[in-house]
């Protein structure tokens, strides 16, 4: 942010030169000018900056110009935006100039890759940013595997513009294929999702609402247990999801201080629409705090409950699963709970907790020494007494290793893991385990 000077040869200075010193200097914004706009619509820009005209003194004007420029970038309207404040000929008059660069309107990519299961695939990706000049993003990708599966994802999102408004709507249409190792079955999904998100209280509380319509086809394989096979076939899930989250962490993937609380509900099969009929309640809490000499402690808690609302038992795909490198480390992914012939049948309720001790290594913000103890249990879908079921089937694993965080987008963990409590039927391997992902307990 810079403050303008007089004369033909203009010299702009950094905003902190006068920020906080001009509360008494009145200001009148005479004009807001944009430089570098080609496709962005005028009404969108007006919504973004109209609040600037309400600035009553120079200090407020400087602050608001900064917020406006930041907001333009964060909602995706601009790739780059900086505000230059110039004086106008009239008394106390100012002109605000935004020097902006619009996002590239079209990006295209293609790649050939190899999946973890050894299938080659080919994918194409295309995206248009701000295609209608109001920050809308359209994104399409298509993947074709050698096995002959086609999958695609078409999504569109649109920010709801306005002064410091962080809110938006999105929709996506997709088709995907996956092998579920815990069920030993294949899943094909065709889904339509509509989403709305909004922020409150200085962006500390995020609200998300989603409407899902998902056509799922579960296909048993030769290895599938009969209990999995019984659920095979087509089902339709139509659901509404709602989630509130509060986040005060210092970093999103591995926080050293702060707390995040997420609370969500999902209702499927209301008014008899679709086959899946259940209510889901979910609570996730994570907290972190510094300890003595660089060490910091983190704790997580997760609870999820699915209640069948129909006459039928909860469908295999709607059940609760637990286990894997991101929650109960050392156990095979989603393997905890009722098991038949090496397939996991999931449960109706799960509770898990973990406590971690971290110490930064070098580089301090991305490599950490790490020790943890994690515990969790899953209650069967037919459990009569859920609390007793949870207490009786508790699993505990402990371990130590290193954690690497890559630019707040990916977390990698390598741990030596040992089970303190497991059942004979569990799929647990003592030894080194590698985990990669975003959401870790």
């Amino acid at each position, binding site marked *: 942010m810079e403050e303008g000077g007089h004369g033909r040869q203009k010299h702009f200075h950094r905003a902190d030169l006068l920020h906080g010193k001009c509360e008494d200097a009145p200001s009148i914004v005479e004009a807001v000018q944009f430089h570098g706009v080609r496709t962005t619509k005028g009404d969108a820009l007006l919504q973004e900056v109209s609040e600037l005209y309400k600035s009553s003194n120079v200090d407020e004007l400087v602050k608001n110009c900064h917020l406006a420029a930041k907001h333009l970038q964060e909602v995706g309207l601009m790739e780059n935006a900086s505000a230059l404040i110039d004086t106008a000929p009239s008394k106390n008059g100012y002109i605000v100039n935004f020097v902006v660069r619009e996002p590239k309107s079209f990006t295209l990519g293609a790649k050939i890759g190899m999946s973890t299961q050894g299938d080659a695939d080919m994918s194409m990706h295309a995206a248009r940013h701000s295609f209608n000049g109001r920050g809308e993003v359209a994104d399409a990708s298509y993947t074709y595997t050698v096995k002959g599966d086609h999958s695609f994802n078409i999504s569109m999102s649109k920010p709801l513009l306005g002064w410091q408004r962080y809110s938006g709507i999105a929709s996506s249409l997709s088709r995907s294929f996956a092998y579920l190792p815990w069920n030993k079955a294949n899943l094909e999904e065709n889904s339509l999702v509509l989403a709305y998100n909004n922020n409150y209280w200085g962006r500390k509380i995020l609200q998300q609402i989603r409407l899902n319509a998902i*056509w799922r086809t*579960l*296909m*048993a394989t*030769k290895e599938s247990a*009969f209990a999995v*096979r*019984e*659920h*095979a*076939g*087509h089902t*339709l899930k139509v659901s509404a999801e709602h989630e509130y989250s509060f986040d005060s962490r210092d970093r999103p993937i591995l926080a050293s201080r702060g707390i995040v609380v997420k609370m969500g509900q999902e209702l499927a099969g209301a008014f*008899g*629409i*679709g*086959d899946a009929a259940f209510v889901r309640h979910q609570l996730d809490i994570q907290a972190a705090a510094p300890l003595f000499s660089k060490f910091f402690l983190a704790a997580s808690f997760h609870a999820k409950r699915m209640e069948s609302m129909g006459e039928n038992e909860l469908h295999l795909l709607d059940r609760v699963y637990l286990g894997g490198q991101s929650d109960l480390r050392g156990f095979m992914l989603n393997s905890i709970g009722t098991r038949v*012939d090496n397939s996991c049948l999931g449960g109706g309720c799960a509770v898990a907790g973990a406590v971690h001790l971290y110490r930064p290594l070098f580089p301090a913000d991305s490599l950490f020494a790490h020790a943890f103890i994690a515990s969790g249990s899953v209650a069967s879908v037919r459990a009569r007494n859920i609390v007793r079921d949870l207490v009786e089937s508790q699993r505990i694993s402990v371990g130590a290793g290193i954690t690497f965080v890559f630019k707040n987008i990916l977390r990698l963990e390598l741990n030596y893991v040992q089970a303190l409590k497991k059942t004979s039927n569990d799929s647990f391997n003592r030894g080194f385990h590698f985990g990669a992902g975003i959401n870790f307990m």
Partner: protein
Amino acid sequence: MAAGDSVLIGLVEEALSMHVDSEWHEAKLYTPFFKDQAQLYEFADCLAVQTFLRMAQLPVQTKQRPNTEFISPTGEMPVLQIGSILIPGFSGIVDLVRKKEAGLSSHLTEVHKADMAAQIAVIDNILRRVEMYVVWIHDETYSRVTSTRFGSVYKWPLSRVLPALKRREMREKLGSIDWANKSLVEVMEAADKAFRCLSSHLGTQDYVMGSRVTEVDALLFGHLFAILTTRLPTMELSNALRKYPNLVEYCERVENEYFKK
């Protein structure tokens, strides 16, 4: 070497030939819903298996499920479950029972067995295809009966989408054996040929292979009963069957013997 082989074969055969009494525990037969879901040929095959097991005096518990096609490892219906083993389709089930030395055709000579196989082939390769054609290709039957029945176990919009997808699949399947583009007249000629062949083989005998029931009786009864009792927009198939009174009478006789006693 040869002696060793025969010992090995003997061991394998012994392992395979489980005694029916001790192994036939809690057998379950998975079928689609007879009343609202099963298509003509699926009903026929399920009935054939039920009849076969009754003839072999093997108890089975029938379970009607909306997703039997997906429970089946091959998509064939019905599916027999014994312990952890799943056996789909009429011929698979007959083979299994034969391996367990409880089959219905062990008294037949090789020549008669070949004769029986020919009768089964007529039902498998002509009659079942005729039924599939009427169910999936004949427009009026598809729109008034098949699509509703196939979609009956799904909610909208799957109840509309899935029958159309299945119809496309069945068109391709029948197309690959040159049946999809036949006219109804041609198909009814094929049906008449099959009925004539089966009727002349049966003649005045009690059962297809003489005085004792064999698996071909179960299969034939299943299909004849299904054709005679299923109401379809086109009655040409059941009318073609009614031209052969010995088949109709045979069907009534088997029904009385195995389902009304």
